[in-house]
């Protein structure tokens, strides 16, 4: 034993003569070590209110609460963590797990107050002396409790993909799906952003547990096109996934697919049920796209007799005639549609409203009508020379491909546009052996197409020429070719905060010759079949319906949805519109509101 150890008990006596620390004479705080785990600090603007800190806290010391002045917005619940220092043990798990790294600790450790209830506070929102403190515990850059990398999905190599229309993405194996599902923090921020408000954390949990039947039932509560959406959904949910703040967001879309891929179509009726108790009421639906068929599904489940009027020979709308099979194979779309039809939904093909059957007949003969006719009239370029026979419409090219016809694009193709139609027309042309140049008026970042599709188009060898405005189409020397004149554009900010606008630079013009030009600049709807007598009862704006609550119009029997009535123009919004309209129709006809 050392001498120091021997005399140390006597040192204690030294303390006996010191002034005691009391509330009147508080301790003189010495600064904590620079990485001390002291009181919590939260950067409110960076926190997204995911509640992962609350979930991980072993002492239940964190509650997510509302903060005055903070409103929920996409990707932010508007809630912030409130700490109970009667429970906290300063383990810092909350700081280590925080998805945004907004949560930190200061190196302050003394807090003296007479009222014990004071030790509850909202970090960052309540005015504490340690807010903004430079020192204290932070998670190290290379220390991650959450896995930032998404499990990669096997896909066809670009050069392989170009050889056929085989599906490019191969789907997860069971093990991969579980591994990916494991990354979910179950915050539910995605639910608010998904247009259909699907129960995402719940179905991801079924993947983790391997209970795909339960998963399928959860999917169908809000989405009867799950096989389709598991492949081509615009996955806006992923944009707000908080795991994406420090890495890649959960592959929510692929996990949906992982469930559907594991349940054969033959078992759907047994798992999801097929019982329909007829209620005697009849609803007409115009359009067998995702909007119309989603409404058909939920109405049929409520016992309605449902007749779908479809102008084309096959069901699926743009998912059938637009989206090519390398992204959405026909049999996967059929899987969704067949189950809906198997419940007794009647589809009258080749029956166009306004031609074979009149609008007024529907209004007179049915208890309610839901209209989801989509946008199928391509906008034209309206530049000089556009009626050249080598100028093709993107929709027509895709329609031909879907119908096993050869659109005859040639070997050198220019595609004009930056949306889904343009990307698909470009990739389809590549598969037919053409060199493809995409001309777009704005920048790649402004393209409305899915970023993954843009990326895949590039990987498959499409060349992008951006800020290029077509101004004229001319005959080429070879009659089987066509020449386009285009000018460079400068981007200017939109004064009203809209998307940046390209302005033509007339001194920088170019001329190029191709075997064909595929125009894919946008499309509109065709509402001409609605007779003038109904005009005052239906509101239109910029060529679309303007729906009211529950997708109802002022012509009370008429409900509208999908691309022809929303501004998002994607499958999941059409599906939600259909579901919402089904609720609205049920409410309109029975006075009851169903979930």
């Amino acid at each position, binding site marked *: 034993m050392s001498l120091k150890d021997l005399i140390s008990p006597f040192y204690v006596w030294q303390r006996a003569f010191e002034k005691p620390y009391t509330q009147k004479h508080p301790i003189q705080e010495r600064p904590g070590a620079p990485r001390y785990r002291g009181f919590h600090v939260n950067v409110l603007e960076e926190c997204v209110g995911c509640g992962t800190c609350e979930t991980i806290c072993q002492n239940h010391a964190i509650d997510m609460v509302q903060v005055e002045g903070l409103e929920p917005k996409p990707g932010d619940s508007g809630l912030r963590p409130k700490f109970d220092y009667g429970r906290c043990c300063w383990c810092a798990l909350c700081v280590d797990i925080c998805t945004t790294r907004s949560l930190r600790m200061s190196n302050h450790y003394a807090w003296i107050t007479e009222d014990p209830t004071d030790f509850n506070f909202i970090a960052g929102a309540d005015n504490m002396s340690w807010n903004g403190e430079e020192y204290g515990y932070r998670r190290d850059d290379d220390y991650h409790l959450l896995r930032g990398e998404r499990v990669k999905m096997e896909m066809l190599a670009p050069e392989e993909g170009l050889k056929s229309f085989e599906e490019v993405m191969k789907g997860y194996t069971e093990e991969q799906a579980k591994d990916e599902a494991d990354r979910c923090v179950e915050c539910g921020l995605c639910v608010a952003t998904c247009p259909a408000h699907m129960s995402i954390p719940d179905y991801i949990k079924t993947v983790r547990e391997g209970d795909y039947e339960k998963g399928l039932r959860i999917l169908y509560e809000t989405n009867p096109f799950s096989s389709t959406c598991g492949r081509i959904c615009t996955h806006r949910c992923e944009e707000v996934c908080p795991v994406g703040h420090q890495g890649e967001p959960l592959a929510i879309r692929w996990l949906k697919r992982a469930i559907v891929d594991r349940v054969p179509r033959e078992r759907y009726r047994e798992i999801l049920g097929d019982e329909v108790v007829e209620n005697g009421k009849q609803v007409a639906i115009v359009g067998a796209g995702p909007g119309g068929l989603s409404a058909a599904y939920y109405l049929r489940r409520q016992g309605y007799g449902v007749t779908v009027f479809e102008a084309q020979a096959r069901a699926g709308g743009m998912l059938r005639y637009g989206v090519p099979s390398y992204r959405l194979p026909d049999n996967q779309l059929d899987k969704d549609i067949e189950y809906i039809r198997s419940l007794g939904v009647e589809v009258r093909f080749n029956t166009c409203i306004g031609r074979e059957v009149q609008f007024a007949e529907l209004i007179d003969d049915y208890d309610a009508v839901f209209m989801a006719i989509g946008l199928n009239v391509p906008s034209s370029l309206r530049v000089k020379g556009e009626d050249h026979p080598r100028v093709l419409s993107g929709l027509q090219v895709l329609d031909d491909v879907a119908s096993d016809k050869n659109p005859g694009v040639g070997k050198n193709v220019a595609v004009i*546009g930056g*949306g889904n139609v343009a990307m698909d027309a470009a990739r389809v042309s590549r598969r037919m052996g053409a060199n493809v140049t995409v001309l777009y*008026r704005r920048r790649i970042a402004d393209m409305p197409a899915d970023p993954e599709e843009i990326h895949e188009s590039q990987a498959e060898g499409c060349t992008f020429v951006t800020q290029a*405005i077509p101004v004229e189409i001319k005959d080429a020397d070879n009659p089987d070719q066509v020449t386009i004149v285009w000018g460079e554009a400068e981007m200017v900010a939109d004064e009203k905060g*809209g998307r940046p*606008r390209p302005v033509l630079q007339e001194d920088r013009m170019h001329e190029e010759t191709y075997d064909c030009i595929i125009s894919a600049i946008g499309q*509109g709807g065709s509402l001409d079949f*609605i007779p003038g007598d109904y005009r005052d009862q239906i509101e*239109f704006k910029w060529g679309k319906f303007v729906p009211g609550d529950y997708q109802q119009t002022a012509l009370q029997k008429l409900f509208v949805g999908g691309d022809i009535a929303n501004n998002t123009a994607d499958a999941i919004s059409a599906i939600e519109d259909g579901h919402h309209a089904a609720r609205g129709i049920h409410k309109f006809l029975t006075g009851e509101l169903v979930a």
Partner: protein
Amino acid sequence: MNSVDEILDFAIEREQAAADFYQDLAERASSAWMKDMLLSFSKEEMRHKGKLKSVKKGEKLLSSEQQVQDLKISDYLVDVEPAGDISLQDAMIVAMKREKAAYRLYSDLASKVDDPDVKDLFLGLAQEEAKHKLYFETQYDDQILRDN
């Protein structure tokens, strides 16, 4: 047409004529929804007319120095016939081109007069028309060229 009032009366009449033009086209429109659209164009012109009437009562016009952005969308588009079965895209082209023509007219008139006040008024009116054109060009960009 020399005095400020005379010029404003002329401009007001032109807005009324534009409103009548869309009203007439709406009456001939073969589809219910295009009728609505054209009536909304007509209303837009009546709003412009209202604005000029307030100018006559003393409200300020856009300053002739304030340059309005020209997106040049309509410049390279073909002329279309305003017929009863006009499409939304074509109706918007007609509207953009009419506003552009009005802008040209006032700019030309401005270049032909010497009186600085009158010149300024014409230039101000030209800017006003450029603003209307920008409105239709922006809508065309958003509604018709959605994917471009």
